[in-house]
């Protein structure tokens, strides 16, 4: 806890410097850049370790992998050793082995995707001082580790605004994965967004306790939809796939029924397609995107250019294109209204006029004006 | 054609053993033909060959003179061969009729025509003198009745040849008489019967001819009227057998076991033992006679501490033991040869040695400070194996791989070796062959002669009459009579076991 708080304070302090860093102004990089310099002739290689979700989780890991793929292609790398690759973990105990394995295969930059890898990266980074690591959604204070955090609350806030505009029953649902700070940021931001539009809307929050239990997600979604909720936002990784399935099933059964699901992390539109009598419909209203891919590309590029921000914590928000809202569903009746509302709030956040709460505790004192 | 079934020179092998070798059995129409042999002699294998469960390696089977190839039980059924199993294959919750028609239901428009079925069952049962209530639930009728249902099942399926597998093992003397009548009626109606048994008395009483097999070999077929029980026994066992167990007069001394007003409930909470009184003295064998289910098991479990008593007292050498756990009872000097040697008597997956110390493993010299001393255990086991003639490769063999008789000898060795003041033997010879029975009876009498008290529970009246010095008849949880075996008859005992006391009131001990 102490560690995270400290890390976060540090990240705020460094946020400005990071943006500058992206423009090419290098801070004191230390050994990271030296190492780069020595390996000029060898192409820059990058790899990641997934958590138990795997690269096809249609969410967080997938987004990171897409970033790495994009980076690899852009730089003419091959998948595999010496280019770009990933290793999937099958249990918590595998993180360390996988990270170590990649570092030993001389990947220049190794990403650990997910807060669960904090401990493993911290330990390995201390042992393998020659290697560069990055952790997504966590903070590790080692000179050869760059920590990446996101302002999930900002994307979630916009999703909340959209949801509040779209609901007809004034009942909205939220499905969380595990009760961890990242997910709490989603929840707090989402609730704040809804509240900003209409404080009378009731939002029901439910934590499934897991990121890989689609069937659990479906049963929670089923209960919510049947209780009159018509928009559900999930921040639950693979568990959220159950939400989409339930929404699709309900839509198929009764095409006239208005219900929506909101995706998370990446643009999950593809998950919402329902074919009814030959025409495609989509139950996904939008997605609160966490552009892990952008962050991965950004950081990889910096590292390749010798500007690896070792020891720093970078926070990607709306202003940095680190988070955002996916394009809205065409089937929305009041799509234009929602779009303009979202655009208004986006400006306020980008301008710094509005700070979105990160915790449900902060939400209590939040006033959207 | 004279024969309805001919099994000629049958040979059946299993990996490592020859179960049947060169056995010939020819069944004449209208006769009762006994198949006699010790346990494990190959009777069941032979019948399973006839029933299509096994294919013989050599030999041929003819039915009504025609050579047949019986590859499965359905073919046997179609040929008119029916089997009355020793362990009934009935569904408790179904009625008699439902059980009989099972698999051959009479249906009209997809529904079972129960009326028609019942009338058919009634018709068959009257023709063969098999009185049953077609509407009664099987769970509610007696064992003898259940056996009739089994017979009816085969007749309903049109059996001409009936195989009875040890049919009298579960019956009371009266029921055995009734069964014999039924078999005679069946013959009159033109059926033929094969009777599998090892009871010589029944063969003498009811059979026309007898085929003897020994250790898988066909020994031969003899006419019953030309033979006698002694000859049959020696044919079966391969040596001379004495039937009457020789013993001297009992010389009873002090009371060892005194049971007063004992009441015990069974596992369903029903009073199984009801204010029972019984005394056993040093140097005598008291046999308990009774139809199964009259509280015998509960009585023994109560004495040995395996079941809680409700009221009354059990004293061993004057000391109250009714409240003691079974280990303390054992330690106070009670040996117990349990009814079911597989369920209670042995841990089948333990070695002989481990079974020998099943109650004493925690005592010196078999263990010290909680650590077992295997050497002592197996030395002991080895000596008991020799003393009690347990046929086993060695003391490290699993109990499971021994024959029933040798398992029982090991149990008896174990119990007797502890030198208990009271030895309880519950059905000690059940399912054993003549040789083993002889051995076990001898051992019980030896115990008596050494001044021990022996309580014998058996459902074989022969055994009770032969071995006991006094017979206590149990009926509905009470000892209703105590008789002297020399002064009573099987008929009288049978009546007592059925609960009639008037006649004998004067003769009670």
């Amino acid at each position, binding site marked *: 806890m102490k560690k995270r708080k400290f890390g976060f304070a540090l990240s705020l302090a460094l946020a400005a410097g990071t943006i500058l860093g992206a423009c090419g102004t290098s801070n004191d990089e230390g050994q990271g850049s030296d190492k780069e310099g020595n390996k000029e002739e060898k192409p820059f290689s990058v790899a990641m370790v997934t958590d138990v979700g795997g690269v096809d989780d249609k969410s967080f890991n997938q987004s990171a992998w897409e970033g790495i793929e994009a980076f690899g292609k852009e730089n003419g790398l091959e998948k595999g050793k010496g280019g770009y690759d990933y290793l999937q973990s*099958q249990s918590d105990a595998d993180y360390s082995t996988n990270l170590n394995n990649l570092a030993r295969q001389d990947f220049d930059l190794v990403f650990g995707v997910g807060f669960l890898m904090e*401990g493993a990266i911290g330990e390995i980074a201390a042992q393998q001082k020659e290697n560069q690591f990055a952790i997504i959604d966590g903070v590790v204070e080692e000179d050869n580790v760059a920590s990446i955090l996101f302002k999930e609350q900002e994307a979630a806030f916009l999703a909340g605004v959209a949801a509040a505009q779209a609901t007809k029953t004034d009942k909205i649902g939220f499905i969380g994965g595990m009760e961890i700070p990242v997910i709490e940021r989603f929840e707090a931001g989402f609730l704040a967004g809804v509240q900003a539009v209409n404080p009378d809307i009731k939002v029901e929050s439910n934590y499934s306790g*897991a990121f890989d239990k689609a069937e659990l997600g479906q049963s929670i979604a089923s209960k919510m939809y049947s209780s009159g909720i018509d928009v559900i936002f999930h921040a639950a990784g693979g568990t959220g796939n159950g939400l989409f399935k339930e929404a699709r099933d309900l839509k198929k059964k009764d095409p006239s029924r208005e219900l929506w699901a909101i995706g998370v992390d990446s643009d999950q539109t593809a998950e919402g397609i329902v074919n009814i009598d030959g025409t495609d419909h989509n139950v996904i209203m939008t997605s609160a995107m966490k552009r892990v891919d952008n962050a991965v590309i950004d950081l990889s590029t910096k590292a390749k250019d010798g500007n690896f921000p070792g020891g720093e914590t970078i926070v990607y928000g709306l202003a940095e294109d680190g988070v955002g809202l996916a394009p809205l569903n065409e089937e929305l009746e009041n799509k234009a209204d929602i779009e303009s509302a979202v655009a208004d709030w986006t400006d306020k956040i980008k301008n710094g006029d509005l700070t979105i709460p990160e915790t449900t505790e902060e939400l209590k004192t939040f006033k959207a004006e | 054609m004279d024969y309805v079934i001919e099994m000629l020179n049958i040979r059946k092998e299993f990996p490592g053993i020859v179960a049947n070798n060169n056995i010939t059995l020819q069944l004449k129409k209208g006769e009762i033909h006994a198949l006699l042999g010790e346990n494990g002699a190959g009777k069941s294998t032979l019948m399973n060959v006839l029933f299509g469960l096994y294919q013989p390696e050599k030999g041929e089977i003819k039915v009504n003179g025609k050579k047949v190839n019986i590859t499965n039980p359905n073919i046997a059924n179609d040929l008119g061969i029916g089997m009355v199993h020793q362990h009934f294959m009935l569904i408790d919750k179904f009625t008699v009729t439902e059980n009989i028609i099972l698999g051959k239901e009479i249906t009209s428009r997809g529904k079972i025509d129960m009326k028609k079925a019942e009338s058919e069952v009634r018709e068959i049962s009257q023709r063969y003198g098999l009185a049953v209530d077609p509407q009664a639930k099987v769970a509610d009728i007696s064992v003898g009745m259940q056996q009739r249902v089994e017979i009816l099942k085969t007749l309903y399926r049109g059996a001409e040849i009936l195989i009875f597998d040890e049919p009298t093992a579960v019956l009371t003397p009266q029921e055995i008489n009734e069964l014999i009548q039924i078999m005679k009626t069946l013959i009159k109606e033109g059926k033929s019967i094969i009777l599998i048994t090892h009871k010589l008395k029944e063969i003498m009483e009811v059979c026309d001819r007898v085929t003897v097999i020994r250790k898988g070999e066909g020994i031969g077929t003899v006419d019953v009227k030309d033979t006698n029980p002694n000859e049959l026994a020696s044919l079966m066992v391969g040596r001379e057998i004495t039937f009457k167990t020789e013993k001297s007069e009992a010389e009873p001394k002090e009371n060892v076991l005194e049971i007063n007003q004992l009441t015990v409930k069974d596992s369903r909470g029903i009073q199984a033992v009801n204010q029972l009184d019984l005394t056993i003295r040093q140097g005598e064998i008291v046999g308990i006679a009774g139809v199964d289910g009259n509280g015998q098991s509960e009585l023994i479990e109560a004495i040995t501490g395996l079941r809680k008593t409700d009221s009354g007292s059990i004293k061993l050498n004057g000391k109250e033991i009714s409240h003691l756990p079974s280990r*303390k009872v054992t330690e106070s000097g009670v040996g117990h040869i349990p009814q079911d040697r597989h369920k209670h008597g042995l*841990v089948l997956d333990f070695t002989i040695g481990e079974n020998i110390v*099943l*109650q004493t*493993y*925690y005592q010196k010299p078999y263990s010290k400070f909680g650590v077992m001393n295997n050497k002592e255990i197996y030395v002991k086991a080895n000596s008991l194996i020799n003393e009690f003639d347990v046929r086993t490769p060695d003391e490290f063999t699993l109990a499971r791989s021994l024959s029933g008789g040798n398992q029982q000898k090991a149990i008896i060795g174990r119990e007797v070796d502890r030198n208990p003041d009271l030895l309880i033997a519950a059905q000690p010879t059940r399912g054993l062959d003549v040789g083993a029975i002889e051995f076990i009876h001898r051992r019980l009498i030896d115990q008596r002669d050494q001044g021990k008290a022996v309580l014998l529970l058996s459902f074989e009246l022969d055994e009770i009459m032969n071995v006991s010095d006094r017979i206590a008849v149990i009926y509905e949880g009470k000892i209703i009579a105590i008789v002297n075996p020399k002064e009573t008859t099987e008929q009288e005992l049978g009546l007592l076991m059925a609960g009639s006391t008037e006649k004998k009131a004067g003769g009670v001990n």
Partner: protein
Amino acid sequence: MSSRLQNILVPVIAVLLGVLVGTIIMIITGYDAVAGFIALWQGAFGDSYFFGETIRQITPYILAGLAVAFAFRTGLFNIGVEGQLIVGWLAAVWVGVAFELPKIIHLPLAVLAAAAAGALWAFIPGFLKAKYRVHEVIVTIMLNYTALHITNYIIRTVLSEKSDRTESIAESASLRSPFFESLTDYSRMHWGILIAIICVIIMWFILEKTTRGFELKAVGFNQHASDYAGMNVKRNIILSMVISGAFAGLAGAMEGLGTFGYAAVKGGFTGVGFDGIAVALLGANSPIGIVLAAILFGSLKVGALNMPLQAGVPNELVDIIIALIVFFVAASYMIRLIIKRFGKKGEK
């Protein structure tokens, strides 16, 4: 053929069949099987780091296997090893973070706390089984989930302030060993392997040498006969579960004090407890068999992680192979039949 030889042959053949079918699957799905197995081997034993990691993985497998096997030898099916492992993990870490003591006291205390917690967690189904005849499989499955969520709650509320993991344990409670680390190039191999081996010996000793083990086995084989012989069947059932749970708790200590050094909120089960069932099954519930089975599964699991990178073979394939091995052991009747056929031919 002697039954003893058969008991050894069955698992060996099951493993070979599992590998064979796994190879066929690799070939059918277009992967390079040879490269796959080379990568598997190198991922498990290829260099000292992987070797250390393999031993690290074997350690909890041995203990989880012992836990399942011990209960099984007494006729109980302890599906709850996973839950007992989780509570053991938490208890060990709790002691590890809560106290500051000299290592000689702190480490044993943390290890014992794990064993005690696992034992307590297993006592519940044992007690319910003995007293009320509630089937242990149902209770232990339920308790797995209970353990998962209770420990998550404790980690979030008691051991941290709404964080997803506890602090790292004090150095004095750690099983980590700089010696092993230097030997195996910073693998997470730790002293727990010694604890696991000691436990193997303890299990063997209890079952084969003590009167207590004699009773436990007797109860496992035949409760009626044990009752008849004057043994306290209920007490033995409870004791068996408690000892089994203690082994499971120790497996948790391996993770808490060795591999991780902390306890984190879990979204799902670790899987070690369930793999323990497979280990016990393959090891035929015998102490030495469990060690061998744990070595096999541990190296498969760790080696598999290297397969995607080096050979492009997905590591799920190893899960398939493990599942096949378990299947073939469970279907040992089939294998025994095959052995018999071959045996017969050989004789002729």
